[in-house]
């Protein structure tokens, strides 16, 4: 009931800064204003609540009711509209970042005449190909602010979208395997804590307690000397994030157009963007935002500018379902292996990038061997577990392993790209920041350090080391 009450009476947020600092726990002001203050308000609140129940939106009551009716009463969660001839804003890319951008444009900024163009199916790119880890344990101040903002939005996302994104704050443990790893980890943790990110050094006993399947023997191939943990980190259901944003954006009037590939950009006489040419015809737009990781440079080439982005394949693997063996996320600094267990029981396995630039969404055998070898070496009891799926996503790799957000050399064309191997965790932030820039014409203060211009000014934000995976 708390959720409905809040959703109904909290004042709408006007910008990203306007969020409660802790989105999962509304601030005092929000709570105060959300409670009925008078008898009349209480009556009104009860009536609204009854109306909500009658509308039978997504709710526990609705699930129960449909359970008795053979699940026959569910309707399509979002429309499948034909493209209109013109929109105020077109977002290229119907993954998490693109859908989130459209949603926040509509919700935070009141822009409703928006289309999201997706060349394949919704969330079929990297949003459907990642390992669902959400964390904000980054080294530099700019990155910590950006990713922690995203993590905070994730904490309140299921409630905001009324869609269960299954965000589970099970924590992430980063393992140190040598004295040097430990020294580096201590330094990172110091920086993270200064930046306000909740990380703690933990010792081998604590790690053994939290991850019983990890090989902790002193003579293990990768002995564990310690590590650090971010307890607010976790995993979410990747499809649900895309679907939740899609449903919420659609409800606000956004047109989500699938099977619609952008093939070129139409320009005005002054060089600004007039619209996009697509496989379903020309669509005019006042502003275009690109959120098409993996193919960012393909679109930049069409628009006539260059990006310091190279596309690589990043592989992931899922094993057959097991009984619960791991209730956190574990990342190894020595092997780059990261491991978590999904709610279905499958172990979700990721590692380093493939070794050369690629657009092939399948991954290559040498890296598969390296990653799976690390599983067998660090978790001997999993050595005979069988894989059920393997795939790869094409990620945008940037020299400093930080995203590129905001303006491009082309007027009215903005971009959100370069998240490398960690775009999923940044979906709410990426959407909020691109929406802010499109709506106001100026970058959000969190996005400013990540502009494309940093590659000529030299103000790089080099997270290659702090992200824990070398690329």
């Amino acid at each position, binding site marked *: 009931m708390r959720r409905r009450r809040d959703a109904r009476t909290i004042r709408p947020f006007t910008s990203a800064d306007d969020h409660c600092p802790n989105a999962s726990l509304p601030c005092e002001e929000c709570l105060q204003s959300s409670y009925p203050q008078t008898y009349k308000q209480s009556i009104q609140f009860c009536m609204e609540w009854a109306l909500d129940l009658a509308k039978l939106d997504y709710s526990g009551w609705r699930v129960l009711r449909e359970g008795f009716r053979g699940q026959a009463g569910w309707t399509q969660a979002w429309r499948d509209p034909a493209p209109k001839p013109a929109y105020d804003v077109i977002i290229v890319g119907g993954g998490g970042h693109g859908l989130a951008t459209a949603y926040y444009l509509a919700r935070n900024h009141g822009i409703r005449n928006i289309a999201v163009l997706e060349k394949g199916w919704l969330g079929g790119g990297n949003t459907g190909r990642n390992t669902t880890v959400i964390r904000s344990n980054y080294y530099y101040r700019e990155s910590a602010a950006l990713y922690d903002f995203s993590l905070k939005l994730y904490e309140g996302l299921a409630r905001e979208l009324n869609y269960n994104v299954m965000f589970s704050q099970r924590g992430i443990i980063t393992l140190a395997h040598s004295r040097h790893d430990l020294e580096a980890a201590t330094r990172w943790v110091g920086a993270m804590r200064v930046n306000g990110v909740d990380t703690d050094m933990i010792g081998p006993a604590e790690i053994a307690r939290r991850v019983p399947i990890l090989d902790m023997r002193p003579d293990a191939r990768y002995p564990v000397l310690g590590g650090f943990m971010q307890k607010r980190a976790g995993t979410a259901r990747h499809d649900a994030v895309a679907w939740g944003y899609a449903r919420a954006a659609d409800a606000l009037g956004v047109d989500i157009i699938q099977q619609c590939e952008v093939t070129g950009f139409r320009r005005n006489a002054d060089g600004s963007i007039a619209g996009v040419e697509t496989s379903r015809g020309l669509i005019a737009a006042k502003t275009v935002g690109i959120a098409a990781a993996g193919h960012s440079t393909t679109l930049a080439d069409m628009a006539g500018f260059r990006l310091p982005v190279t596309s690589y394949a990043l592989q992931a693997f899922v094993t057959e379902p097991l009984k619960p063996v791991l209730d956190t996320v574990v990342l190894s600094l020595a092997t780059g292996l990261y491991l978590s267990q999904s709610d279905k029981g499958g172990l979700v396995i990721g590692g380093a990038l493939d070794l050369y*630039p690629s657009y*092939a969404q399948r991954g290559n055998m040498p890296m598969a061997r390296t990653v799976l070898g690390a599983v067998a070496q660090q978790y001997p009891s999993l050595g005979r577990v069988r894989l059920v799926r393997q795939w790869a996503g094409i990620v945008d790799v940037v020299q400093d392993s930080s995203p590129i957000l905001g303006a491009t050399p082309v007027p009215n064309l903005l971009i959100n790209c370069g998240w490398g191997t960690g775009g999923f965790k940044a979906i709410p932030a990426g959407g909020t920041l691109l929406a802010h820039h499109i709506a106001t014409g100026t970058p959000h203060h969190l996005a400013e350090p990540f502009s494309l211009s940093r590659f*000529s000014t030299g103000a790089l934000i080099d997270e290659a080391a702090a992200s824990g995976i070398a690329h």
Partner: protein
Amino acid sequence: MLLIHCPWCGPREELEFRCGGESHISRPSPSATVSDTDWGNYLFTRKNPKGVHYERWVHAFGCRRWFNVARHTATHRIEAIYAMHEAAPSAFDGADAL
């Protein structure tokens, strides 16, 4: 898994090699006249075609010599292998031109 024909050692598996990124990049000069944008592009911006990519490879666990490879980035098919000093070959059957 690629089978790469090292010009000196013959066909070897991909594990013995390392990819050194885009080939045929020339340093802008004279340094004093190069703008920050051009210098940034020289350092950081690379061609990233979905098609044939001209790149440097080294036989890291073999003869340790460098050579050029023209490779399709979507199929991984190696179209040509040529020496470091040679110009990039152009136009391959069924391949996207750069």
